[in-house]
């Protein structure tokens, strides 16, 4: 169908626009969404759909999510925005103890599957402790919710629409550094990208590399460097859904290549790479040619001035590939 050049925040707006148009029960709410949002993701929606469907909330994350759960339980579609993933923690109890357990604890009498929570995520160059976090690992530990992270505008729209339509509560993290920077031709009409399906971006034979969000672009570059400098062929996988994650695609790839590198900005210890690494060594133990490598943020809060040294950049990833090949 018809496509339009969109950056990441515009593709989000487009998805929300589609959702509000298609689903008369859908509402979009959060801090400052009415005027368009601090990242412009909701520009124009209130004018188009009215103040009863696009509205501001007080500054209270626990309330935003709790309110969203309430709406979802009545059967309406709730699309909540948390202004920064770093500030999602006051809502942690609502997400983990309420949203995630609603269906299970009621024996499927009730559910809040119509809830989607969106939040800007990841490093942005100057965000420091409270505007850079990648908290997916906290939520990965919680059965009952889905966690999804897109790498681009095209992916974001399809994945967000799938989250909104999915009958389980979903958290959708949006890489804020890509809001303006990433631009693609994106279909104007709605479309879906399936959840819990990883995507192989490029095939390769020597090393499997797995990442999500912004970091996918880093490992893509590393794959090119490895090919050029080391003659190493890398298979690049975007995990896309953190929970429930696509073990099959990743294990199938590692069974082929024998080497796995996982990379994320979030700190190493307890980061989601740990879960992937653990599962892969269970499933692919005899296929492995080298220990699984994790290139992640350090075990510190996210620093301000030291960001260039903190992040798992292409040089660290490249070096890890080099070591794995030479193991």
């Amino acid at each position, binding site marked *: 169908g018809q496509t339009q050049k969109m950056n990441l925040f515009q593709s989000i707006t487009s998805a929300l626009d589609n959702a509000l148009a298609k689903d008369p029960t859908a509402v979009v709410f959060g*801090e*400052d969404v*009415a*005027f*368009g949002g*601090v*990242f412009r993701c909701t520009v124009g929606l209130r004018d188009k759909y009215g103040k009863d469907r696009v*509205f*501001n*909330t*007080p*500054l*209270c*994350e*626990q*309330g935003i999510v*709790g*309110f969203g759960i309430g709406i979802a339980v009545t059967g309406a579609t709730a699309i909540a925005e948390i202004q920064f993933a*770093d*500030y999602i923690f*006051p809502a942690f109890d609502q997400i983990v103890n309420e949203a995630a357990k609603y269906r299970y604890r009621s024996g499927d009498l009730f559910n809040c599957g119509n809830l989607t929570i969106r939040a800007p995520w990841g490093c942005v160059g*100057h*965000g*420091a*402790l*409270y*505007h850079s976090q990648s908290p997916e690992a906290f939520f990965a530990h919680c059965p009952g919710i889905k966690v999804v992270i897109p790498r681009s505008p095209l992916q974001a729209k399809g994945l967000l629409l799938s989250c909104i339509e999915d009958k389980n509560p979903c958290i959708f993290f949006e890489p804020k550094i890509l809001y303006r920077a990433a631009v693609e031709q994106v279909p104007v009409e709605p479309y879906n990208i399936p959840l819990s399906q990883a995507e192989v971006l490029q095939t390769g034979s020597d090393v499997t590399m797995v990442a999500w969000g912004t970091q996918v672009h880093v490992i893509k570059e590393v794959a090119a460097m490895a090919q050029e400098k080391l003659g190493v062929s890398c298979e690049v996988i975007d995990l896309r859904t953190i929970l429930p994650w696509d073990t099959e695609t990743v294990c199938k790839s590692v069974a082929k290549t024998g080497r796995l590198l996982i990379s994320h900005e979030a700190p*190493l*210890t307890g980061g989601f790479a740990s879960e992937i690494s653990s599962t892969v060594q269970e499933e692919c133990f005899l296929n492995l040619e080298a220990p699984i490598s994790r290139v992640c943020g*350090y*075990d*510190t*809060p996210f*620093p*301000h*001035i*030291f960001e*260039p*040294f*903190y992040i798992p*950049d292409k*040089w*660290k990833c490249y*070096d890890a590939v080099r070591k794995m090949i030479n193991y």
Partner: protein
Amino acid sequence: SPEERPQFPGASAAFAERLEFIQPNVLAGIPVYRVMDRQGHVLRPSEDPQVRQDTPGAHLGHTWHRCPHPGSPPSSSIHVPPRCAPGVLLYRGYPLELFMAQCYGNARDPGKGRQMPVHYGCRERHFVTISSPLATQIPQGDAPGAGSLGLGIWAGSLGSGIWAGSLGLGIWAGSPGSEDPGIGNLGGTPGMGNWDNGYAISTPTAEQYRGDGIAARGPGYGLLSIRVDGNDVFAVYNATREARRRAVAENQPFLIEAMTYRILPVSSKNPHFPWIFHPFFPIFHGFPTGFCPIGHHSTSDDSSAYRSVNYWDKQDHPISRLRHYMVNRGWWDEDEEKGWRKSSRKMVLEAFEQAEREPKPPPHLLFSDVYLEMPPRLRRQRRELERHLETYGEHYPLQHFQK
């Protein structure tokens, strides 16, 4: 029979035999205490704190980065500040150089370059380092027993001074826990200042809650409360001074809601600019947001999309009001204004440039202070970075950092 009273635990009221609901806005809005009118004239002489001209800064610790500050608590009290309200620190004599150092994250920053700009802290001046999350300071400022230490934890500052609804009570019955955990119940003697600027970024208070602002919640918590004109230096000073005196003497907490507006006098074209560093009137503005137009929440905010600043800047600016007062008394005039404007601009620009030139702290400081002692795993990560930089150092901005 002897008068029957309810026997419920915690209830000390009498019975009522007529069905009647309590009106929420009983006082038709709690009145706003002020001392001066907008032209700087003291309305009632009894309320004039009679600040002397020769005690610069001694009594007035106002800043207008985003909001006014109460006449500063004495340096002996611990201040737990919200984001964007560093006036107390400036008032306590924190040097310009160190404000700039934090903003630039250079090697002089006592905070070691860890945080985004404007997240200051100073142990010597009892100013707890600012953090970005909002309203987290509320329960923290509630620390028990401080009164007995002779300190008084002043200003468990309602953290989100600039966000009126950020106490998180909003339209829901519960709070996010930021305000509820027994404000004042824990035995401490906090003084709480909330600077109600009418907005949470773009969301006006009318869209956040139905009640009469923050002051109206005080009685619900059993707090002595007052609403003051936050643009009136003396009103805030009087209220703060009295609240603190009584908080310590009576060992009970106080709540002050200072009404104001988000003003950011950073533009050198703005007539209020020269007041930024007058010793009599310490004011801070948002350095890292640079010289941007008045009043945006941050560099990514365009507040013209949702409010008009012109009225506030022209009609009721807190600095203007104080200036009128000073001019009325012959303590200030146009020549002094010009001179100060010139010298303050020079000071600030010099400090800017100096801070920009300073190197950043050494990268190994990335790893310290996570815990008091560095765990082995983290030490190993530090070594890994060192080794990584030996090979790949050319790809990193090492020339800007100390060794």
